[in-house]
């Protein structure tokens, strides 16, 4: 239950704090002070209760109602606690100039900024309500009620910025008189939006984006399943008889900037730094800025970035920072990336970033025995797992079951396919049965597609019933998947009929792969607990640590970087994609939609968004409010006004999304032999560009790679072929592949894409239905040679390595 509470002095008493602020403003800005005729300050609280309504009402009265001096505004919850009308109009009537022109400035602590007041309140609510989980979250803030007919919006902004709100830890917004007089702000969806939990209605739009492009489930193909079950799976990960801490992206992630020199931590939110924004506005001065984040949680996730124009300085500074973080937090550093962002007529801009997680806290569970029931716990629909409450419920249920010693083992499924989970499950290594009746679609899908946050629990048969009841009561979906045994066989049963039977030798035919052979690169730092508790640099051989998505947006000027994907845990393939964009006055809901679609088309599940402003335009406030309500995204807003208003207006956006498996994402690299290569025309607002960016169509996820070709101004003599060959060569290099190509004419700007043989028909059909004229160019081959057939049908064979 979401409740908003406002408290303020009764109208018969003066408000000393408000008057004091008025006096201070008069000293600094006398002209403005003359415009303020009356002012009042109210305390505001946004509360999320997990308790019955009558209990909540009683508790709110106990805590907030001080009848002698204060009025209590709660919307319709306690109308009698205020004056005659129960709204702020009771206070407004005491203003000396009536009817008067009223304005409101509301400030609130940013989510996850340390809020002592909220902590104290949480403590007291727990005492009064009697349960630990009775309070879901509290944000505190204040509302300034001002009367003044001549006050303009810029005056109010000045007051908010200079006197009322501390922008690094508090966000503020202006409220019109109509809003103040009505009680709409007390409605639960309005309150929920500040508490970081988007209301259900607002999520629907987001769900659309998340579900977009999900492959449809086909009929079960037993030949394919058998092939998969008999296949040798490259396994280099440790077996999962251990209870693994699943890595989950925290939507309410708190980042902290760490001042390395003084070694003191100042908590703040993750944002594009002030200096970074200034660099865009003022023509790129040399700036080096490090932002490091540490989650004050046992499962720490931290994120660091460093920017500047001097690569060695960026690198050195960043490495020092990483070491400092690793030493102080005992966090291994998993990924690091240094890349360059080049702009026309502007100096290069280097950017490095990193993401780390704690070492897995592993706990050896009791050794498994036979006839352990396998229960798959989770939800078949992905979006449910974006719901933090759901995940917390799941975790508490697991803890409950663990405490009761009902669970023998837990297999984590996040970011892994079912096949991978089964093939490396030690508790199943003497044989098991899978009963897939009723869950065929899930089985087919999860066998090859990585699963979302879900788990397979091994439960003792005698404990099964009560645990299933417990899960049902907690609203967690689950189904019975099968059981393990000592038969030495692996069976798949559908409708009481054994559809597939293998021996365990055939099934557990795994090959250990050395990390060097893994397609994705090693982290450049490793954590060796035996040697010492610090990070060790690893020499990496001309390879990037993460895969980089590179799909040039059509509005090139608006891009500050390509999407970056970071894999935080080396044992899993899940990662975070950060899609950045910088835009000027053209920002609109359409722009936002475009960004979201692009994110989804690249395979990301949208988590949260950060908006930073420089010299904010008034029109943006409206649009941002629309975005907040319509898209239901966890939106953190940071407004900055660093220079006088003659500076450029910028709005920096960072969309954070989760990738279940970064191996499946579309990158520049060609993925596998026999993929078909096509050329698609590009250009602003061309159907092909719109399709690639996810604006239209639904088969973008079938693409194995997409490479943007910039139209070349300099190589017209070579018909642009040199640039094309160069780009394609680099795309082949990483996996040591080759290609057979027909380059028979000049290729202007556009895209080369590759598609697997199986997916070609559906994609080609979609292209033709959308009027996209694709051109088949060739195919990827296993040998590292580029075989080019030119206009005169002459064949040129070049070694890729020679070309490099």
């Amino acid at each position, binding site marked *: 239950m979401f409740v908003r509470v406002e*408290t303020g002095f009764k109208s018969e008493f*003066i408000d*000393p*704090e408000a008057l004091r602020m008025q006096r201070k403003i008069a000293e600094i800005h006398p002209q403005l002070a003359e415009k303020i005729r009356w002012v009042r300050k109210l305390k505001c609280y946004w509360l999320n209760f997990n308790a019955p309504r009558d209990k909540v009402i009683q508790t709110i009265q106990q805590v907030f109602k001080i009848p002698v001096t204060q009025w209590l505004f709660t919307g319709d919850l306690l109308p009698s606690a205020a004056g005659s009308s129960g709204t702020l109009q009771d206070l407004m009537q005491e203003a000396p100039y009536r009817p008067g022109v009223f304005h409101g400035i509301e400030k609130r602590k940013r989510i996850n900024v340390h809020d002592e007041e909220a902590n104290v309140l949480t403590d007291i609510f727990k005492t009064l309500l009697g349960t630990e989980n009775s309070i879901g979250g509290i944000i505190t803030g204040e509302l300034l009620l001002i009367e003044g007919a001549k006050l303009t919006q810029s005056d109010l902004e000045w007051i908010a910025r200079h006197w009322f709100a501390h922008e690094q830890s508090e966000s503020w917004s202006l409220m019109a008189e109509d809003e103040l007089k009505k009680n709409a702000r007390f409605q639960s969806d309005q309150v929920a939006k500040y508490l970081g939990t988007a209301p259900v209605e607002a999520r629907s739009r987001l769900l659309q984006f998340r579900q977009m492009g999900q492959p449809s489930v086909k009929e079960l193909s037993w030949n394919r399943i058998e092939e998969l079950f008999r296949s040798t799976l490259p396994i280099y990960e440790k077996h999962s008889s251990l209870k693994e801490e699943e890595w989950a992206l925290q939507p309410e992630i708190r980042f902290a900037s760490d001042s390395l020199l003084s070694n003191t931590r100042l908590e703040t939110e993750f944002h594009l730094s002030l200096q970074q924004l200034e660099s865009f506005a003022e023509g790129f001065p040399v700036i080096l800025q490090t932002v490091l984040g540490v989650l004050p949680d046992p499962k720490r996730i931290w994120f660091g970035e460093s920017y500047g124009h001097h690569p060695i300085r960026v690198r050195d500074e960043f490495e020092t920072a990483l070491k400092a973080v690793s030493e102080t937090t005992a966090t291994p550093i998993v990924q690091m990336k240094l890349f360059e962002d080049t702009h026309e007529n502007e100096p290069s801009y280097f950017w490095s970033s990193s993401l780390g997680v704690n070492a897995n806290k592993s706990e050896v569970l009791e050794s498994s025995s036979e006839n352990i029931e396998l229960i798959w716990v989770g939800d078949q629909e992905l979006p449910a797992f974006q719901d933090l409450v759901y995940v917390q419920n799941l975790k508490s249920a697991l803890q409950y079951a663990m405490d009761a010693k009902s669970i023998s083992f837990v297999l984590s499924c996040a970011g892994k396919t079912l096949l991978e989970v089964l093939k490396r499950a030690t508790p199943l290594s003497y044989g098991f049965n899978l009963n897939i009746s009723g869950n065929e679609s899930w089985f087919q899908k999860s066998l090859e597609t990585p699963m979302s946050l879900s788990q397979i629990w091994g439960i003792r048969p005698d404990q099964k019933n009560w645990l299933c009841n417990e899960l049902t009561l907690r609203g967690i979906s689950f189904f019975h998947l099968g059981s393990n045994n000592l038969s030495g066989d692996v069976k798949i049963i559908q409708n009481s009929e054994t559809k597939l039977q293998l021996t365990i030798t055939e099934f557990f035919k795994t090959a250990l792969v050395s990390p060097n052979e893994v397609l994705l690169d090693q982290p450049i730092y490793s954590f060796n607990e035996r040697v010492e508790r610090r990070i060790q640099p690893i020499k990496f051989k001309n390879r990037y640590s993460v895969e980089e998505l590179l799909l040039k947006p059509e509005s090139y000027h608006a891009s500050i970087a390509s999407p970056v994907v970071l894999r935080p845990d080396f044992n899993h393939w899940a990662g975070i994609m950060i899609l950045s964009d910088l835009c000027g006055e053209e920002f609109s809901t359409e722009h936002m939609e475009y960004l979201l679609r692009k994110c989804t088309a690249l395979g990301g599940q949208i988590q949260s968004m950060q908006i930073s402003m420089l010299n904010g335009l008034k029109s943006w406030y409206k649009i941002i409010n629309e975005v907040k309500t319509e898209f239901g995204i966890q939106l953190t807003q940071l407004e900055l006004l660093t220079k006088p208003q003659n500076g450029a207006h910028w709005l920096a956006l960072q969309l954070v999304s989760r990738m279940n498996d970064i191996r499946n994402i579309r990158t520049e690299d060609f993925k596998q032999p026999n993929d078909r290569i096509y050329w698609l025309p590009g250009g602003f607002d061309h159907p092909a560009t719109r399709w690639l960016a996810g604006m239209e169509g639904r088969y973008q996820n079938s693409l194995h790679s997409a490479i943007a070709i910039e139209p070349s101004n300099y190589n017209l003599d070579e018909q642009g072929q040199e640039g094309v060959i160069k780009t394609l060569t680099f795309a082949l290099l990483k996996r040591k592949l080759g290609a057979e190509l027909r380059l028979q004419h000049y290729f202007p700007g556009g895209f080369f894409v590759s598609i697997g043989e199986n997916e070609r028909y559906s994609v080609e059909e979609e292209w033709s239905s959308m009027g996209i004229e694709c051109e088949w160019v060739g195919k990827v081959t296993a040998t590292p040679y580029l075989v080019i057939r030119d206009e005169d049908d002459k064949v040129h064979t070049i070694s890729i390595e020679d070309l490099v």
Partner: protein
Amino acid sequence: MSLYRALILSSPGSRGEKSFAHALKQVGFDAEILNIEEAIRLKLEQDQLSLKYKLVVLPGGNTYSSVVGSGRVLALKLQHALGWNLNRFAERGGLVLGVGSGFETLLQMKVFGEDYSLKLNDEAKTQEKWIKVIPTGNRCVWLRGLGTLELPLNEQNTEFVIDPFAYVEAKGKLDRLGLGCLRGETTNRNDDRVWGMCDMTGRIFGLLPHPEYFLSWTNTEDWFLNPTRAAAPGAGMAIFENAARHAEV
């Protein structure tokens, strides 16, 4: 003199516990400082309180950062986590002293009735000064036999407020029944000049100035002008001596 036990209940943000302990030890109490969270952990509920202690002190300061209202959270904790009813404690012979924020805690617990409260002063600033206060009436055992006292003040919420809707009745209680037992010379926009209150038994006493900060003559700013009095006790000690005198009753 028999050794009675006194409880000084500290809480996050409270100040002056050691001064209280020092003063109470001087007058013969066995003083113990206990944090509220520790008291909750020890389950120091109403019955235990009456059995163990003769005197309870709620020190001043900025308890719980004055969240919701000064003294409010502490009052809720005492009422709901410990189940304290200080009126009943006083009826059984206990003594209660609340100073500054502690006085506000007593007001929030409605020990003196529902119609009184304290409010932020007009300056919205902490007032640090010495004020002259005069005990009135004979109800309060803490002030019995005392004349004008000059005590230090260190408070933000100095404005004593009576509920406007019950003004006549509440004002009558203050004056006729002698609940407003400490009046000030200066008004400070405080129309009733009430700087301290007691309950009907006279054993629960709350006041805004801090007697614990004037235990010795050297606590005054200009004591060195009269160095011969350096060893003399301060006016605050008189209040604690009264407590010791009436503890047995």
